[in-house]
């Protein structure tokens, strides 16, 4: 019934439940003590509640060389990776997680090829006379809306179905307003990367640092700012009848630039930490997924900023095709990349916010 990795989590949770020294670090351990047995849904829940901060591994009296070989961050990370493909929709595409680096590389190639070929077909050449930053002279606005609308719509639907299936398995019950507010705060503040004491999480050794949370904030809020810039630009286009190119001091350019810088600093920092981090308290098999996603985010931000800088040059069509190809790959793979971690973790955090308000009934 349980997979090999799920069985390992159940074994370790039984030991942890007899010890409970880690209960102050994060939500995983208080959630564990509310349980007597660990069924598949419980294991999936705990796996996605874990932020892989590493504190419980370094504090563990039962970690290797102890014969119990407890390594909760690794055990939960391995199951977490499995849950991404288990809940992915459509299920066939869930298998893309098994070779995620390849998946993202293929998506990127396809995205780039699509826009380069389109540019050639529509304009006859990739190098052209300067167009004063008018993207729509290269790709008609309606074409872009149609392409991205379809891809983004599908990705959103796939993610929604995936997390709905996860939510159904967790059977959390109704969410009260305070529970929603608490979970939202935990997501936005990345509370459980603070180690329970505010000193942060572990990277190369048992030292605590807040740096991972900072880089994640740059990434997360950078992404949100870029997304906001796009939404505002769409509003300007349809509601105010103001088309791109926008002035440097306009909201879409300011927010997009700030977001782009965040998406430059954040993923660079996360990549650096990913390379430097002790591999033992994590799941090495997640690395292609982690690094592929980081690379895709970086490509998006770098091409976006370069495009902004050289939008008046004769290479605009080339830069635009590269940027749009990257964005297309990013959005097309949202339900089958590391991006999904945010959605499932948010769901697990909401489940915890609901559960902790319920009367404790063991078994």
């Amino acid at each position, binding site marked *: 019934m349980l997979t090999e990795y799920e069985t390992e989590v159940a074994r370790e949770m*039984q*030991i942890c*439940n*007899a*010890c*409970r*020294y*880690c*209960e*102050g*670090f994060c939500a995983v351990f*208080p959630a564990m*003590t509310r349980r*007597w047995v660990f069924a598949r849904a419980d294991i999936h829940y705990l796996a996605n509640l874990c932020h892989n901060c590493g*504190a*419980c591994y*370094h*504090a*563990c*009296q*039962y970690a*290797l*060389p*102890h*014969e*119990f070989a407890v390594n909760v961050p690794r055990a939960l990370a391995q199951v977490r990776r499995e849950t991404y493909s288990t809940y992915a929709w459509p299920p066939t595409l869930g298998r893309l997680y098994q070779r995620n680096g390849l998946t993202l590389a293929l998506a990127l190639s396809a995205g780039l090829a699509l826009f380069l070929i389109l540019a050639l077909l529509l304009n006859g050449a990739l190098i052209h006379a300067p167009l004063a930053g008018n993207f729509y002279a290269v790709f008609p606005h309606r074409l872009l809306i149609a392409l991205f609308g379809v891809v983004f719509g599908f990705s959103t639907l796939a993610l929604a179905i995936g997390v709905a299936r996860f939510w159904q398995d967790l059977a959390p019950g109704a969410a009260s307003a305070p529970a929603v507010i608490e979970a939202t705060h935990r997501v936005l503040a990345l509370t459980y990367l603070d180690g*329970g*004491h505010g*000193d942060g999480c572990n990277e190369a050794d*048992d*030292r605590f640092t807040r740096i991972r949370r900072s880089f994640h904030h740059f990434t997360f809020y950078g992404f949100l700012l870029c997304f906001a810039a796009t939404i505002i630009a769409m509003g300007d286009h349809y509601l105010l009848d103001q088309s791109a190119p926008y002035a440097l001091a306009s909201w879409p350019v300011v927010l997009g630039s700030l977001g782009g810088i965040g998406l430059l600093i954040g993923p660079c920092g996360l990549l650096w930490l990913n390379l430097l981090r002790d591999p033992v308290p994590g799941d090495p098999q997640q690395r292609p997924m982690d690094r592929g996603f980081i690379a895709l985010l970086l490509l998006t931000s770098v091409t976006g900023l370069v495009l902004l800088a050289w939008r008046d040059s004769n290479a605009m069509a080339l830069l635009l095709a590269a940027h749009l190809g990257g964005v297309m790959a990013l959005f097309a793979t949202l339900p089958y990349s590391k991006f999904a971690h945010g959605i499932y973790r948010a769901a697990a955090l909401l489940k915890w916010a609901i559960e902790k308000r319920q009367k404790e*009934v*063991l*078994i």
Partner: protein
Amino acid sequence: MPEASDEKITLIPDVLIIGGGNAALCAALAARETGASVLLLEASPRAWRGGNTQHTRNLRCMHDAPQDVLIGSYPEEAYWQDLLGVTEGHTDERLARLVIRASSTFRPWMHKHGVRFQPPLSGALQVAKTNAFFLGGGKALINAYYRSAEAMGIQIRYDMPVDALELKDGHFVAALCGGQRIAARACVLAAGGFESNRQWLREVYGQDAHGEWPADNFLIRGTRFNQGVLLKFMINAGADTVGNASQSHCVAIDARAPRYDGGIASRIDCISLGVVLNRKAERFGDEGEDFWPKRYALWGRLVAQQPGQLGYAVIDAKPLGKFIPSMFPGTQAASLAGLAHALDLPEASFLHTLNAYNAACRPGTFDHTTLDDCHTEGLLPPKTHWALPIDTPPFFGYTLRPGITFTYLGLKVDPTAAVHFGGQPSDNLFAAGEMMAGNILGLGYAAGIGLSIGTAFGRIAGTQAARQRPGGDHAH
């Protein structure tokens, strides 16, 4: 930065610390804080560093009003009375009060060295008044202390078990470690007890009527590196000792625990909610005499007296969820006969014992959080609380063995932590932690007391040892 362990030690440090657990680190940090150069020798490899401290989780702190993680108050007198109670008078009031008063100053100092505390959680409310829990437990504390030690320039060497000391009329000269001679101006001994020394345990617990050595069947809940080598060396060198040499703190734990380092997860928490049998499937104690934490040391000794040093805790489905689960699932069966079979106990005797117990249970109002009125009548031994018939499947069994937490035998010290020879204090040799805890805790145990003794006397020993350095106020 610490140098490689195999590098020859040439510089003579002001203070040599022998040991690598809480008391050793507190001594090292306190000595270094005064400016002394410090070298610490830990017997274990780095992965096993920290001795029994790895398995601890709180310390007992005096406080007159609610303070950070502590609720209510725990004045000196209440602390002293608790200590007097558990030790049955086997304590030294002067040293005990020294520890108690010092315990009010621990937390800011520990915080400075990176130790973090957590508010009391629901499962431990009964000790939230007396005990401060460090976040993540003892290994997190040890990691914090080692990080602080490294940052302060304390030299740390692992895999360095000291075999002997070079002494001159009670004066420390050098430590001998695998052919290396390590001289220092002063030395702190904080190398733990002897609970992992199987031969020594045999001597203590002797042979039983069947010619067996009960101690061979004991599990050690703490570090495998507490071999008592230095303790034995000091005794042979004529150091004054204290504490009960023939006793150790021995509790009933899960028989499936590893031979060493079973730690907290080896506890079996359901004993007072069921019955306990021996290999003949007979009961041998009042399982409901008092709350389990107050009785587990008694049950360690009781189980040690049974054939094969084995006990079997048996419960039915009713108490599930009312105790902390075991580290491995219990043996489960749908019937009592099935459980007897699964536990490899004689079925007829098992059923006879259980039926007699069930018949003797008097109706009452069960409440596992109070000393309730559910008890047996006409049964020997009786069960005086929480006695419910064991009749609701599935049934669970947990095999028990004695598990040793620590030993009481230690070196006699004075308020400066100085080791004594023939009643005379050494000028530069000090002891801290389990090696001298018997001065204060001669018998019994109270949660968090060991860490408090180790922290108080670790800091005293480190400070005193540092006074021997050139420029220190006791320099020669």
